[in-house]
């Protein structure tokens, strides 16, 4: 008994010292938490309803959407001091037909106040040519071209009376990472410094993005479905990617 007490007395200060040091480190860099992003799929300000609702493109042509899916990857957060944090293995497939996919959770993010978010619309170059993937990048998700390696970054299928394709179909499969038809686009947006993304151990903020599917068809080039109603990579996919690069996403608000 005596010996144990003695030992404890000896050990205690040592324990306190090490734990103190560790705590310091954790406070400065190692505290991590979670935030979520909601992707609110819309068409020109109206909620996106698949299959039934008729929308108009910038040329005034009617269209309906049956499929709307896109990849968001390599999410990076920056602070006002210019430091940034890339969220490892952040690959998400948002599918308008699957409600659960429109709300994504980012875990193990260092706590802090972030004033900028950026991400790839699509999938980075390397993963397009990598071996068999799983999760969001599983080819079973129907977003991988089997005949021309690479992911479909944004897939929109639907119909338009103006489309000259069979059954008035619209087929926009945007992808490809090789110049001159590289369609990787990065979206970045500043966050109001007065209400930054405040990631805290006791606060898990939610970012709300509006996603405008009609952005595929306007921006740099107004698309007429009479002349462009089908693309699976190549120059026409570049036209569409240049359109949605800036117009597809808009940060609406943050719930801290």
């Amino acid at each position, binding site marked *: 008994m005596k010996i144990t007490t003695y030992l404890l007395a000896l050990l205690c200060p040592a324990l306190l010292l090490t734990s103190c040091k560790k705590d310091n480190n954790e406070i400065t860099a190692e505290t991590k938490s979670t935030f979520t992003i909601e992707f609110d799929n819309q068409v020109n300000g109206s909620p996106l309803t698949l299959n039934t609702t008729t929308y108009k493109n910038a040329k005034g042509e009617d269209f309906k959407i049956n499929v709307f899916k896109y990849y968001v990857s390599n999410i990076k957060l920056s602070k006002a001091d210019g430091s940034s944090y890339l969220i490892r293995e952040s690959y998400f497939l948002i599918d308008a037909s699957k409600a659960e996919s429109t709300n994504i959770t980012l875990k193990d993010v260092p706590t802090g106040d972030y004033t900028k978010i950026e991400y790839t619309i699509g999938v980075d170059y390397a993963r397009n*040519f990598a071996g*068999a993937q799983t999760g969001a990048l599983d080819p079973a998700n129907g977003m*991988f071209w*089997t005949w021309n*390696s*690479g992911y479909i970054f944004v897939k929109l299928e639907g119909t338009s009376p103006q489309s000259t394709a069979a059954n008035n179909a619209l087929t926009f499969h945007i992808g490809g990472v090789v110049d001159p038809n590289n369609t990787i686009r990065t979206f970045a947006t500043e966050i109001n410094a007065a209400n930054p993304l405040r990631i805290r151990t006791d606060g898990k903020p939610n970012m709300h993005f509006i996603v405008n599917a009609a952005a595929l068809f306007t921006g740099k080039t107004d698309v007429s479905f009479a002349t462009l109603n089908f693309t699976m990579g190549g120059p026409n996919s570049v036209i569409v990617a240049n359109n949605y690069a800036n117009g597809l996403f808009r940060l609406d608000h943050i719930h801290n």
Partner: protein
Amino acid sequence: MLALSIALMYACSKNEDEVSQQETKIAFTVPSNFPAPAYNFEDNKLSNAGFALGKKLFYDARLSADKSVSCGSCHQQFAAFTQLDHKVSHGVNNCQGKRNTPPLVNLAWQKAFFWDGGVKNIETSPLNAITDACEMGTDIQTIVAFLKATAPYPDMFKQAFGSTEINSQLILKSITQFTAILVSANSKYDQVMRKENGAVFTASEQAGYTLFKEKCSSCHAEPFFTDFSYRSNGLDLLSADEGRSHITSLQADFGKFRVPTLRNIEYTSPYMHDGRFYSLDEVLNHYDSGVKAAENLDASLKSGIPLNSAQKEQIKAFLKTLTDHEFIKNTLFSES
């Protein structure tokens, strides 16, 4: 406690015995006359169980839409893993595909796959044949569901990957454990190059090899007998198949196809992307006098490759030294 540890020891030694007696350890070895491979199993640990699973999947016709076509249907071992006597691949519902089946040989050194180089990783290559309406005509979700419900697959996945989980990634990785092992590097040519078993070319083969290096090897580069480039060899004035430009959207790639390997060429007839030539004589006659002034004809073929009949015979003699009988007959790769 004692009994348990003895039992464990016994189990251990028994397993080791079984391994050494019944199985050769599957290994991937780089032949001494080959460069470093593009695929090295770094993210796909090769094992006997993974290879066995990959091989079973490769030969399982139940994976196709009408259960009639396996990978092995169009990639036949006796034809160096291409399809004998078929101009183009023959898929489900008797559908005739678009192009000649490429042989599956030395794929671990290849960085792009298929005649147009559209697929960039050996692991994702099978997806093309799985989903093509004229090949296996199915999709990976259907295959995953089938395998989950079909013995002995769940057990085989567990042995190969440590879990009964079955997904597309594990399917593709196990098939790669089979296809990337298909190394053909023991032809007479290889033995001559490596100075093995006292192998020497005959006078005719040697003359053919000299001619080959002079006239053919700028595209059919050793040791793979392809430089993996895309070229037009002037089969038609206007190619019916757009070829490489389907992938790149570049007019300069219209009508170009990957230079095919010549390894085991004796057994991979018919030849060319559309399988139009049934014999090596037809192929050599094409280069001698049949090359058409196609839009993107390769510069090296502007005047064809003039060959007299003696030279043709010598080149054929050399090409037959590229046959790897051991590879074609290796029971490790056969359907069992």
